[in-house]
């Protein structure tokens, strides 16, 4: 195995830098995702992976880059470092194909997470943990439809992101009618609020807003108030604000992918594979969601979310 | 037939009338001096001749043909080379690159045609040496040259490329006595080669020896055009000073006590 010094625990975030500090094994896994730094969703995945690393005494190194080519280069870098296993999210499977196959060829077991489940086995990955964005989208759409929504605004916080597109089109399928997409900038929430409000003002018949990121949900609630609209707000993913929003009745529900599992489980799977050649589910994808969080179950989850695990 | 002829030319900058009703000729083998106060419009006239500005009124004739230069390139192609008052040099570029800017000598052919740097360096060094400027390093950026050295580069460039008409806007202003002498000698040489020269200067001691004809401007209008025979040096000086009593000044400048 690679004997780099494993980052002198640069700071504090609790990365699994210090290799093999628990259970005697000196395994080292790399997690490489397409999330952008500071994204709330991927933050929970990272927490899951690092928690698993700590629990099992495995060194886990988390890296991410939204650009497919650079994500591929990060995989190559991990292969060069001779890690013992790689976890990779495959938003753009074609772009990663070469690098993933190279890793498999080099004898490194790979587990894919989050997206790309249909190509996972073909690339030689030992398993997939995740939830298809389209399935999650359909779940959200169906839930909205049962709540009586007919004209839904779908808030895209990143133009051209394939996962977000799948969520919106999935929601349209679940709803049984078209949704109206609108573009905002995730780093400018104040502008996002105005944009959502403008849509609600321009079309008063909108009766539901579906946000694809938990941070946007809170401003969507505000925007509805600003615009004097009665539209209900639903969102993907959880955070503190979303939970208190659900508790207060401002937010109807949140679609929870339970992405903590997408970080935690693959580490376990890799460890079992490396040490015991176990596989899970016969190569079939392991689904982590969608779970719907609404008034009925929000209170139990509230504490967990503040700890960064939901 | 005159080389260049201006007929009733005028030019405005916004509300400022910089030139109005100027008529003049530039003949081959003659030096035309343009004289006038600061802000009289001399540089503006030059810029019309060299294609930087287009005249707003009147017309310009080259070899008897009406022309209107849309860009300095066109004037250059017609054989008119100019030393601008602000010198038109790129401070960050090396001396030799500035020297040949816009007229780079090339070597090789097709895709391998390239700037002949060795020749350009050598020509630059020689041209400046002839003016009495000893450049230590032709790769020095123009911005680090002294004021007079910079002016010398601009003059040497214009002299080198001035095929038919050579225009000099206050070429000797920053030059030492020796270098100014060299420039005047160049002007005389060009004149003798049959080049038409337009010279702007505030120094009557420079204007009188080389000038063949003197065009006087005042606030954008012509005060008349004189041939050399019609005026002598002192009269010219008086004309340039707008009739002010210079002799009196000389007395004033002396110490009141001594």
């Amino acid at each position, binding site marked *: 195995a690679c004997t780099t010094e494993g980052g002198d625990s640069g*700071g*504090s*975030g609790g990365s699994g830098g210090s290799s093999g500090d628990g259970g005697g094994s000196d395994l080292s896994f790399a997690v490489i995702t397409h999330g*952008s*730094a*500071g*994204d*709330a969703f991927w*933050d929970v995945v990272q*927490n899951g992976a690092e928690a698993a690393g700590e629990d099992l005494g495995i060194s886990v190194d988390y890296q991410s880059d939204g650009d497919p080519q650079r994500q591929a280069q990060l995989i190559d870098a991990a292969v060069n470092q001779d890690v013992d296993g790689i976890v990779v999210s495959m938003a753009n499977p074609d772009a990663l194909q070469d690098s993933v196959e190279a890793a498999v060829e080099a004898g490194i077991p790979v587990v894919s997470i989050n997206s790309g489940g249909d190509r996972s086995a073909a690339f030689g990955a030992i398993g997939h943990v995740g939830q298809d964005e389209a399935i999650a989208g359909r779940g959200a759409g169906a839930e909205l439809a049962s709540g009586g929504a007919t004209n839904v605004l779908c808030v*895209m916080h990143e*133009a051209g992101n394939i996962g977000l597109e799948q969520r919106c089109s999935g929601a349209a399928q679940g709803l049984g009618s078209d949704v*109206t*997409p*609108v*573009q905002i*900038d*995730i*780093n*400018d*929430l*104040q*502008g996002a*609020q*105005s*944009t959502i*409000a*403008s*849509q609600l*003002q*321009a*079309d008063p018949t909108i009766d539901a807003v579906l946000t694809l990121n938990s*941070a946007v949900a*809170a*401003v969507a609630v505000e925007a509805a108030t*600003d*615009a*004097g609209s009665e539209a209900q707000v639903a969102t993907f993913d959880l*955070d*503190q*604000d979303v939970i208190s929003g659900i508790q207060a009745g401002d937010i109807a529900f949140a679609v929870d992918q339970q992405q903590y599992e997408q970080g935690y489980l693959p580490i376990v799977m890799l460890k079992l594979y490396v040490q015991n050649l176990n596989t899970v589910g016969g190569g079939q994808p392991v689904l982590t969601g969608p779970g719907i969080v609404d008034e009925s179950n929000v209170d139990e989850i509230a504490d967990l979310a*503040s*700890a*960064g695990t939901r | 037939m005159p080389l260049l002829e201006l007929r009733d030319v005028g030019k405005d900058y*916004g*509300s400022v009338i910089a030139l109005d009703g100027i008529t003049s000729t530039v003949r081959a083998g003659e030096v035309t001096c343009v004289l006038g106060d600061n802000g009289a419009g001399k540089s503006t006239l030059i810029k019309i001749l060299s294609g930087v500005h287009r005249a707003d009124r009147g017309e310009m004739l080259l070899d008897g043909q009406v022309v209107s230069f849309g860009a300095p390139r066109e004037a250059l192609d017609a054989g008119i080379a100019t030393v601008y008052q602000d010198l038109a040099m790129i401070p960050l570029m090396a001396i030799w690159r500035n020297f040949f800017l816009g007229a780079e000598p090339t070597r090789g052919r097709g895709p391998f045609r390239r700037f002949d740097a060795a020749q350009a360096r050598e020509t630059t060094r020689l041209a400046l040496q002839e003016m009495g400027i000893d450049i230590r390093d032709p790769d020095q950026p123009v911005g680090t040259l002294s004021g007079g050295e910079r002016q010398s580069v601009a003059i040497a460039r214009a002299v080198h490329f001035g095929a038919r008409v050579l225009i000099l806007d206050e070429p000797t202003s920053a030059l030492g006595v020796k270098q100014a002498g060299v420039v005047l000698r160049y002007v005389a040489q060009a004149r003798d080669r049959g080049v038409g020269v337009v010279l702007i200067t505030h120094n009557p001691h420079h204007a009188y020896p080389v000038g063949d004809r003197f065009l006087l401007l005042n606030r954008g209008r012509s005060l008349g055009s004189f041939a050399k025979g019609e005026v002598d040096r002192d009269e010219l000086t008086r004309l340039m000073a707008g009739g002010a009593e210079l002799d009196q000044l000389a007395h004033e400048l002396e110490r009141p006590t001594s």
Partner: protein
Amino acid sequence: MFAFFAVQSEVFRSPRGIANWLDPASTLGIMAVAVALLMIGGHFDLSAGVMTGTTALTVGIVAVEFGQNIWVAIGVSLALALAIGFFNGWLVTRTGLPSFIITLGTFLMLQGLNLGLTKFFTDTVTVGGIDDAPGYAAAEWLFASRLSIAGTEFRVAILWWVLFTVLATWVLLRTRFGNWVFATGGDEVAARNVGVPARRTTITLFMTTATAAWFVGVTLAVRLTSVQANTGIGQELIFIVAAVIGGCLLTGGFGSAIGASLGALIFGMTQLGIPYLRWDADWFYFFLGAMLLLAVLANRLVRRYAEAARR
């Protein structure tokens, strides 16, 4: 510009619509004015966007994680912003390196700090619950209240924006410091030769930008009550864009505060005008780009026409 959108969309020209699109224009405007001053002074600040995030997060962390009074948090945040601004200015004047690259360094470092420290203190990527801090009500009144004019609620930030623009215009045109800003940006060597304290001017300008970022950051923190670690990233360019639309030269030495404000207004209008027209969201950026080009070109035509008429 306004006419175009107003004709197309009734809601856009309604008081509520106006209040809505003036809102993003206002915080953008405050930053654009400060950035314009800096650009007139001949420099860029790429860290201005992320600094709004840093200051907002600081308010959140000090108020929530350390349980301090919100005014204490706001004070700490200001001190931090001034320190960063000073650091930027000092490094730029000291090393003579382009401010573009220096502030890019600060930008990246702050981006990392924002994320790293937020995670360190909260274990997540958001700081929330700022409204529970003591003193919040007063802070809300100052930074995030709404003013009712003719039955429509306008954000108080719009008022601040106008104040900032007037103040900046006054400083630029009517004070010694303003003269120095133009001179430093126009030709730093010449300015120094006639005795302008160019270094001090530059550092002050960077600190002004930092102060504006602090103000916007606090407004964000108080208004949204929870702050994301990636707040403000990418905004720095929009500030520069607004200043440039408003007539600032990228090479320094020329521009105006009021122009930058108008630039922010044009940008804000365009950004929200498109959703008001309900044009296809996929083409949002296409329209944004086209509108921007048209606005700038129209702006130029109008100015030319005005200049020609004056003559």
